[in-house]
């Protein structure tokens, strides 16, 4: 069966017996797709140190909180760890008595931002954290949004009508002139001062939120000495739309269009990762043709994302023609995706159980033409950039990452592979048709920006190889099914609904009540072009999830920026930010 490899991905029995010898108060919670260990708060730090040093769980993946309003204590903290030698994951849960938890920044530095986010969203305090401020909202915001008693639309108490209306006019049925509180510039200044409490120089340079050089709205604060940076901090939250809270009131199919608006550059990869997680929870198996179509479109989106990265990175460093050439290739891929799914950018094409529609006629001819034509163009772009002396001077030895940084901060994706750590979810936990195709995973030796550039270009070449293999396989599967509608959790297609009454009744039930998932929890991740995108879903047996946590790769990758920029100039900051490749929709969710 396809998923047999992951039963060995969670912690195995001999390690559990070693843990039980040393800590007899540990209790085990085992599901089909996840294993959690419960420990109480007072021995949490010793327990995690034991896991890290003696059992090999060196790499920090994620930390989050869950709100149970009718239980006392109310909040539960969940930690995810990974062991690179044995390739196993483990989850650790603990109850936060008195709404506080000890901070684990002494063990893993990557937990600093995760704990700030938990304070912002839930109100859980962390003892021992060096500067506990709000992550996404401004400092004087009085509420904690992800608690269960806070409404989705917020507390609408300000009168803020639209400026384009005649007085007393109502343009639409869902318009209301009342709105949530909008902060003033003084509130934002307070936020900025709280981030850098002990600055040593005269000015703090704002590489501002609305700047064309940052890739989106990220706010950097540089504490400078002449031309060199001494301290740095990052304020996120300028695109925080509350997607995790929306998920708690939508069914599993209704949430699919929101997943592609998070990482909007490679939308199909995020959808595939989410639908894989939900399919494992509901125990649905998609047909063969759907798996090959999903793999092919994921790899096309990977090429799409790396082309955008190359275009904007070269534009920031001064090479303007590469921007136009890369966008010419992107237009071709967008034409392919528009012809198959309907919209160029945020296509919601994947459904639970398969894909929404079959491939139209002529699609495979166009893809074969693209596969033949693209490697020559890629060779041309490499000739312009790779051995150019200006490019070499700006990229070599800028932002060097070591292997220990990868484990401490939880870096994934190209950033981890440039330091020599072979962490690729397509290799470790292959879903869809990744275990049936041949490809190479490139690794770097030094870990600077030049390595990351070479790795991304090499990944584009490997993706074209995968697309060619998938197109060849799909030629022979023209008449197969593309969605598994005989399963009770899968929505029927339109032809079935028009012609049979049972399909219409099943459609009505699934849309009104949602897919009633069995009770359980799951953590599954997929390989985004930016890193590991993981979904942690808790289901209590209703049609919508109880808690959906999105572990975004770009959020943890951006955390190493303040460490690497110390002692360097502002010009290096542009190159470093480009090579870490953040997307603000995914870091802020």
């Amino acid at each position, binding site marked *: 069966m396809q998923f047999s490899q992951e039963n060995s991905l969670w912690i195995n029995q001999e390690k559990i017996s070693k843990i039980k010898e040393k800590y007899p108060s540990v209790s085990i919670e085992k599901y089909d797709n996840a294993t959690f260990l419960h420990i109480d708060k007072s021995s949490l730090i010793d327990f995690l140190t034991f896991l890290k040093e003696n059992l090999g769980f060196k790499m920090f993946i994620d930390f989050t909180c869950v709100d149970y309003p009718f239980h006392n204590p109310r909040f539960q903290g969940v930690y995810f760890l990974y062991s690179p030698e044995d390739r196993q994951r483990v989850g650790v849960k603990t109850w936060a008595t008195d709404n506080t938890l000890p901070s684990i920044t002494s063990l893993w530095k990557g937990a600093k931002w995760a704990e700030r986010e938990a304070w912002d969203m839930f109100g859980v305090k962390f003892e021992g954290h060096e500067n506990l401020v709000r992550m996404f909202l401004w400092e004087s915001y009085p509420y904690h949004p992800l608690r269960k008693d806070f409404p989705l639309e917020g507390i609408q108490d300000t009168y803020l009508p*639209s400026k384009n209306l005649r007085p007393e006019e109502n343009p639409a049925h869902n318009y209301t002139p009342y*709105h949530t509180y909008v902060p003033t510039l003084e509130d934002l200044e307070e936020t900025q001062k709280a981030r850098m409490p002990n600055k040593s120089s005269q000015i703090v340079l704002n590489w501002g939120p609305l700047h*064309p050089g940052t890739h989106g709205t990220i706010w950097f604060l540089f504490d400078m000495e002449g031309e060199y940076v001494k301290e740095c901090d990052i304020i996120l939250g300028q695109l925080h739309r*509350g997607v995790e809270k929306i998920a708690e009131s939508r069914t599993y199919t209704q949430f699919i269009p929101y997943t592609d608006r998070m990482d909007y550059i490679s939308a199909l990869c995020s959808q595939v990762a989410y639908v894989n997680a939900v399919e494992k929870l509901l125990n649905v198996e998609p047909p063969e043709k759907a798996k090959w179509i999903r793999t092919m479109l994921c790899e096309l989106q990977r090429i799409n994302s790396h082309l955008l990265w190359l275009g904007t990175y070269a534009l920031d460093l001064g090479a303007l023609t590469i921007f136009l050439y890369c*966008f*010419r290739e992107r237009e071709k891929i967008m034409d392919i995706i528009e012809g198959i799914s309907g919209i160029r950018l945020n296509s919601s094409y994947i459904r639970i159980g398969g894909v929404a529609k079959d491939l139209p006629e002529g699609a495979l001819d166009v893809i074969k033409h693209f596969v033949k034509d693209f490697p020559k163009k890629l060779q041309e772009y490499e000739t312009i950039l790779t051995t150019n002396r200006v490019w070499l001077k700006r990229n070599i030895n800028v932002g060097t990452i070591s292997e220990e940084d990868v484990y401490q901060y939880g870096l994934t994706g190209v950033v981890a592979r440039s330091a020599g750590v072979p962490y690729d979810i397509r290799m470790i936990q292959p879903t869809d048709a990744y275990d049936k195709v041949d490809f190479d995973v490139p690794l770097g030796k030094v870990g600077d920006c030049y390595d990351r550039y070479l790795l991304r270009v090499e990944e584009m070449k490997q993706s074209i190889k995968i697309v060619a293999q998938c197109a060849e396989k799909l030629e022979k599967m023209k008449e197969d099914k593309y969605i598994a509608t005989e399963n009770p959790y899968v929505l029927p297609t339109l032809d079935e609904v028009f012609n049979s009454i049972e399909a219409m009744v099943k459609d009505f039930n699934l849309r009104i009540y949602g897919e009633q998932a069995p009770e359980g929890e799951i953590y599954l991740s997929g390989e985004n072009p930016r890193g590991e995108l993981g979904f942690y879903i808790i289901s209590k047996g209703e049609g919508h999830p109880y808690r959906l946590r999105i572990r975004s790769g770009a959020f943890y990758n951006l955390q190493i920026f303040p460490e690497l920029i110390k002692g360097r100039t502002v010009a290096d900051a542009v190159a470093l930010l480009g090579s870490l490749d953040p997307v603000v929709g995914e870091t802020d969710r």
Partner: protein
Amino acid sequence: MAIKHNSGIILTTVEEVLSWGRRNSLWPASIGLACCAIEMMHTAASRFDTDRLGIIFRGSPRQSDVLIVAGTVVNKVAPMLKLIYDQMPDPKWVISMGGCSSVGGPFPTYSTLQGVDRIIPVDVYVPGCPPTPQALLWGIMQLQKKIKEKKEGKVWDEIPVREVPTASQPLLEKSPFGF
């Protein structure tokens, strides 16, 4: 052409020339926040060129006359956006691109601003999620039509309230000058 005051022959010709110059060389200060920014970059690239219409993207608001707000505007960013709008010199216009900046879009949550027209006045709304580059170019052409018929700003009695387009627009003919 609705000229508000009766200025005589010489000044009306000057007004016409100024209005022709303003609408054929709109320089945007692009505020690219989210997914609609990617479609705006595609409109500026070589397949759907904006340079043919005279549009050059400037980085600073002090050198631009139109503000294209592309992407979701969050409550935290709203005062900064108002500061940028105040720094632009007159005459200025605003295009709100996409559903998120027009009415809040598909995010009716605690942290999203439900429509950017609650803080600055908007001239053209372009719906879509995201609007295709051809739809954005149609929106820019609607702004050019508005500049031609009024000098600047909005006049309440003259904007028709509900004109919902119900058919796809035909191709325009090229004039004998070639554009």
